[in-house]
């Protein structure tokens, strides 16, 4: 198959991944604002989409880190990257179907690592960079975010206890609008860059860009647009989980969670450390819930989310490795991977229609068990 065609296919697949990244992560910025009524659902996703687009243009630090750090660029090729993206997209869709806010970044890293390992062996993966820039921050960032959010939520409730309740509620709702917008902007600066990094890596490995190059403008623009459109579509299933299933979120908690998330993400972005915005935001929301009252947090939901997190990297790696092995057999293998991936994605989407979640029912609280109703 012609190299240019392969590059076009990979770039298109990367943008599809970016789109799934967008709707998978809309909840990061807007779940608590929608849950507290600070923003109407449609307005929330519109703001988030626009700010993700703006954020994509603010920095390329993370994009440079991804394309130059995790894998040996001389040992992989665009087909391998394509296989990795397939693994990441499928895992994103599976977790979206179950309403679990797993990390799109880790799905991407997992898919790329699995595919690269099959193609280039152990030497193609830089385990030091993987540990230093991905695994360790992934393990620590949600805990750090949760601790910060818990502390600031406790302090905010203590200080605000002396204030008029109406003023506090209105004030923090306005604050939430600002802080949610900041998270959306931070998300754009962080996550859109991951796709930029992947596309840049593809162009480098195909010999169309010099090693170490920054993402070209068209890459920045297309990645920004893809994540913005995805964000606007709204991942309502995950918004419902983070907004109404974690804890009974008040405007104070929404504000503290989002402010914490913004602080962590912007700081890490500035230092070129690619953190998972999903893990940071989820940690912040749990921390904000615990900051008011530990018992108000639904820890069972936390357990399921952590379980999904721990499976994200290996699951995406396995799919990426399988896709890489198949695609490496030739053009037919590549087509089989593309068609197979599309079929699975379509199946997940069709299954999701059985219990659709949308802007109109995203804030519905779960039905109490039948035994409670009878009592």
């Amino acid at each position: 198959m012609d190299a240019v065609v392969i590059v076009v296919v990979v770039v298109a697949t990367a943008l599809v991944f970016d789109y799934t990244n967008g709707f998978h992560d809309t909840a990061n910025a807007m779940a608590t604002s929608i849950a507290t009524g600070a923003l109407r659902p449609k307005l929330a996703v519109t703001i988030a989409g626009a700010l993700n687009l703006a954020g994509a243009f603010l920095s390329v630090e993370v994009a440079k880190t991804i394309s130059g750090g995790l894998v040996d660029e001389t040992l992989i090729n665009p087909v391998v990257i394509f296989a990795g993206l397939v693994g990441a997209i499928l895992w994103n869709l599976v977790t979206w179907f179950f309403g679990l806010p797993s990390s799109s970044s880790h799905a991407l890293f997992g898919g790329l690592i699995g595919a690269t390992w099959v193609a280039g062996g152990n030497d193609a993966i830089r385990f030091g960079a993987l540990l230093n820039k991905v695994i360790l921050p992934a393990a620590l960032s949600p805990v750090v975010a949760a601790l910060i959010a818990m502390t600031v939520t406790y302090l905010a409730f203590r200080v605000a206890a002396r204030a008029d309740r109406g003023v506090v509620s209105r004030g923090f709702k306005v604050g939430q609008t600002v802080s949610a917008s900041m998270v959306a902007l931070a998300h754009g600066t962080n996550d859109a860059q991951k796709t930029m990094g992947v596309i840049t890596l593809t162009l480098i490995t195909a010999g169309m860009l010099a090693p170490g190059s920054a993402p070209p403008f068209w890459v920045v623009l297309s990645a920004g647009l893809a994540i913005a459109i995805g964000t606007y579509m709204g991942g309502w299933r995950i918004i419902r989980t983070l907004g109404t299933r974690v804890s009974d979120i008040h405007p104070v908690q929404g504000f503290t969670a989002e402010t914490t998330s913004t602080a962590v993400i912007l700081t890490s972005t500035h230092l070129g450390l690619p953190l998972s915005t999903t893990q940071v935001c989820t940690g912040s929301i749990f921390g904000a819930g615990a900051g008011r009252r530990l018992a108000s947090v639904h820890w069972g939901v936390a357990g399921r989310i952590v379980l999904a997190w721990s499976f994200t990297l290996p699951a995406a790696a396995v799919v990426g490795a399988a896709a890489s092995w198949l695609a490496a057999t030739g053009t037919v293998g590549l087509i089989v991977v593309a068609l197979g991936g599309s079929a699975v994605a379509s199946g997940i989407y069709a299954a999701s229609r059985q219990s659709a979640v949308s802007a109109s029912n995203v804030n519905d609280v779960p039905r109490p068990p039948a035994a409670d109703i009878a009592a």
Partner: protein
Amino acid sequence: MQIDWAILAVVAVVAAAAAVTVVLLVAFALVGLSAGAERRVRGDGVAFRARGTGTALAVLCLLAAGLIVGYGLFLIIF
């Protein structure tokens, strides 16, 4: 393998400081605005001054919070 603990620590400390500061500033601003809202009902001269003080405190706190947010954005863009 060399774990870059320094960067991780910097992220944690700077993010914590920024989040605590911004949230407390907004919370104190709302306390200031509440003081004005509560005393407005009384309508006397003392209440008028208290309301002004509360509003001034709120404005100062919100300006400070805005500066921190603006500085964060500045770091990202430039």
